[in-house]
């Protein structure tokens, strides 16, 4: 009978395989057996073996349970995903040493096992194959008993992960040094450690019909806007894709508008940034397998705020923010201004400089636009090479790069030295933008503006920027206007945009993002000098 069943199963798999060649990808779920679990241990183990294709890392250990009555049992786990020592010490040993009461009925055995396995973290009752495989491949150990048509999964997650390290992006001089890792659990723990509050809620779901990736939304109940939470849930539920390998997959499936160069979802590697955003009422989306965590809704101004702004004093932070906006602006328009000024508006440049530039450009055979284009494209090539190349070769690229953008290029008569200054300035400016996501959109727009500058001079640049601003104002992130609180103008929140007001003045959380619980601290937080002591009073008088 067992043999027959096995044959039938094999046939079914072949059929499934044929079906899957078609476009119908819902067949992927059919890989998992649909029929109920059998009461016979041998049959169940056989189904597991068949379904996993006899994969060598799926370990099946058979043993006999109890001392009085020899009940056949088995544990199944995936090697490498579980903590093996944990499995043998806390799971197998108590089961082997237990005395199994003869009178135990089918209903009573799960509580019995649960009690015996008190030393193991979580114990769950699993009744269908789909859950069983999900648990198995999440790193749990499955316990099967002969004569019972269900299974138990015990929490034994383990295995190797990268240790917590300093984040590679968003580096801060002052601030915590830990960054997220690829482990979802470690990441949620890092956030929990910062916000010890029962209202910090976590909702987990699996996305990806094949990969079954754990995706979690985290928010502070009562601070986050319920409508936005519901919107995030709805957008995540809508996703029907085969795989999620990085938060970028999710980001592109849930963002408000695809056809824009601007990021409408923020991502970060730093737990303190996530905690700060949760406290402002935003929602974090954590994905198993990536250290980059998504934060929604994201506003334009957020990409200019470095985490250190909040750790430094307000005057310094404000000055730095203005500097960053200037940097972003420069990385957008520096080459275009060079083109416009040398082609159309020479009168703008002081006379001596105009003569100097004209003398340099005398030897250059190209119009300013072509000159700028050559240098900008060269720089982009160098930069791309620098990122993708193995570290060892990187040195060579930087030496060659220094030659290309430098003295030699000028001597060769390709470009003028003024152009080299402009390109270098643009390059440094685009590296200095605190968020890579926004720097990269400036890189794209820069080329459009260069073209407009070549055609129309300053008028072209102004119109190009005007279209960009119109576009920015039309964007939304999870329903929030992207340019708020600048446009629409919300006076109470402007303190944390280009400016950063002193910390004691932060009375309210951002308005549009949360609507109920807006007060974040009391109004009397201004530090006061101590009252003069009596002695001082006497001395003074």
């Amino acid at each position, binding site marked *: 009978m067992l043999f027959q069943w096995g044959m039938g199963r094999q046939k079914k798999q072949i059929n499934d395989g044929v079906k899957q060649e078609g476009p119908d990808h819902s067949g992927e779920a059919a890989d998992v057996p649909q029929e109920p679990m059998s009461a016979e241990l041998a049959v169940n183990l056989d189904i597991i073996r068949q379904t996993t294709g006899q994969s060598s890392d799926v370990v099946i250990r058979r043993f006999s349970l109890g001392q009085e009555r020899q009940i056949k049992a088995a544990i199944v786990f995936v090697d490498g995903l579980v903590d093996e020592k944990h499995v043998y010490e806390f799971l197998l040993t108590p089961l082997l040493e237990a005395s199994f009461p003869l009178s135990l009925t089918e209903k009573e055995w799960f509580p019995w096992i649960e009690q015996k396995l008190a030393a193991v973290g979580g114990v769950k009752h699993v009744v269908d194959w789909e859950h069983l495989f999900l648990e198995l491949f999440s790193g749990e150990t499955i316990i099967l008993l002969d004569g019972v048509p269900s299974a138990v999964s015990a929490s034994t997650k383990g295995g190797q992960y990268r240790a917590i390290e300093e984040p590679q992006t968003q580096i801060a001089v002052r601030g915590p040094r830990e960054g997220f890792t690829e482990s979802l659990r470690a990441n949620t723990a890092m956030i929990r450690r910062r916000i010890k509050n029962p209202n910090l809620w976590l909702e987990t779901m699996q996305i990806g019909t094949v990969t079954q990736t754990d995706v979690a939304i985290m928010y502070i109940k009562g601070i986050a806007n319920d409508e936005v939470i519901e919107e995030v849930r709805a957008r995540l539920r809508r996703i029907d894709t085969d795989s999620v390998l990085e938060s970028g997959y999710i980001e592109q499936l849930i963002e408000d508008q695809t056809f824009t160069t601007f990021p409408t979802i923020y991502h970060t590697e730093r737990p303190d940034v996530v905690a700060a955003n949760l406290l402002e009422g935003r929602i974090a989306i954590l994905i198993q397998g990536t250290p980059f965590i998504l934060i929604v809704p994201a506003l334009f101004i957020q990409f200019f705020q470095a985490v250190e702004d909040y750790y430094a004093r307000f005057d310094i932070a404000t000055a730095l923010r203005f500097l960053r906006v200037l940097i972003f602006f420069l990385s957008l328009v520096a080459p275009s201004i060079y083109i416009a000024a040398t082609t*159309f*508006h020479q*009168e*703008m440049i*002081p006379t001596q400089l105009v003569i100097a530039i004209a003398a340099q450009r005398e030897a250059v055979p190209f119009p300013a636009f072509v000159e700028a284009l050559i240098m900008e494209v060269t720089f982009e090539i160098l930069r791309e090479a620098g990122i993708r190349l193995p570290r060892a070769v990187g040195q060579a690229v930087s030496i060659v790069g220094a030659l290309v953008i430098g003295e030699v290029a000028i001597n060769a008569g390709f470009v003028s030295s003024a152009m080299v200054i402009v390109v270098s300035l643009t390059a440094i400016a685009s590296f200095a933008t605190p968020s890579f996501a926004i720097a990269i959109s400036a890189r794209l727009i820069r080329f459009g503006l260069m073209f*407009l500058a070549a055609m*129309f*001079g*300053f*008028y*072209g640049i*102004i*119109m190009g920027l*005007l*279209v960009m*601003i*119109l*576009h920015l*104002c*039309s964007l939304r992130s999870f329903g929030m*206007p992207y*340019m708020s609180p*600048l*446009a*629409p*103008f919300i006076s109470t929140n402007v303190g944390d945009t280009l400016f950063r007001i002193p910390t004691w003045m932060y009375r309210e959380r951002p308005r549009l993002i949360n609507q109920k619980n807006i007060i974040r601290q009391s109004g009397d937080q201004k530090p006061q000098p101590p009252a003069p002591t009596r002695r001082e009073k006497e001395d003074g008088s």
Partner: protein
Amino acid sequence: MEHSKINVRQLFVLIVLFEHGSAMVIPLGVSAKQDMWIAILLGLALGLLLFLVYERLFHYYPDQPLTSYVTHIVGKPLGKLLAVLYITYFFYIAARVLRDFGELLLTFAYPETPLFVLNVLMAMTVMYSAYKGIEVLARTGELLYTLLQILAVVGFILVIASGVVDLTQLQPVLEEGWKRVWKTVFTETLYVPFGEMIVFTMLFPYLNRPEKARRAAVAGMVLTGINLAIIMAVNTAVLGADAVSRSSFPLLDTIRRIQVAHFLERLDVFFMVALVIGGFFKVSIFFYAGVVGVAHVFGFSNHQRLVYPFGALVLLWSVAMASNYWEHIHEGLKIVTLYLHIPLQIIIPVLLLVIAAIRRRFGSSAK
């Protein structure tokens, strides 16, 4: 009709940007000679009265634009005719302002570029903004309003610091009595820019708090009127009344006089930012009003489909309306004022208000 809303602050900003639009660039009220600033302030005062007429009409029909309540007031056939007339007027003024800016750019920066090419870029930006809708335009206005204010203050300080302001040029005040000033008010300053507030009757229904419309609009108009008076007074003080009346762009000439510390000079390009932004808002608002008007009168549910055909129309019209700049200016000052501004800004709205008030009084409401 678009289901978007703008708030009171945004309306205020839009009005300020719109009213400054071309008015700060063109010679405004120059026939009053050195008293042009008085003419502007008087124009503002009368313009406010006129605006109260428009506001009253809006008060009667708080959720409808001009092109649709006009049919309620005078009946369907005549109402439709008037609505089409207003829409054409809006498109025409959009084209006129577009032309103004094309000419301005030609004169001071791009003498060899064809007018059409310059206008294409502006027209495309205007179409994009109309396509995105009033909400986006209003938000953009909020951002650029701050920029313009900074530019205005910096410009004012620089002009003063250059030491070119000579207040005696503003004297004698009222050299020939009030008569010439009043004449200027009734032939020029009342209609542009204050009478052009008629276009906002198309935008008031988008307001989220209609009861605040009057305050925002009056504040915006007063601010603009005072600003324009200051601008023209400074122009006169720098250039002299004679040069202002002969100049095609007095503000530009004033800015060219700026010379501070031997390196802050030739700032006209920076002020092109202010001029282009003002022009953009003026064209955009007229154009948007025209497009929503068409959508209303001819029953299109989505105005976005109308943007490109009418945008092309305005673009071609702006190039074809006059064969040269002087023809354009002459038409603007003489013909347009007499045959378009006076009937459409004053006579028809006042008549509409009278009829609407009578209907309301005697109960034969055409709801």
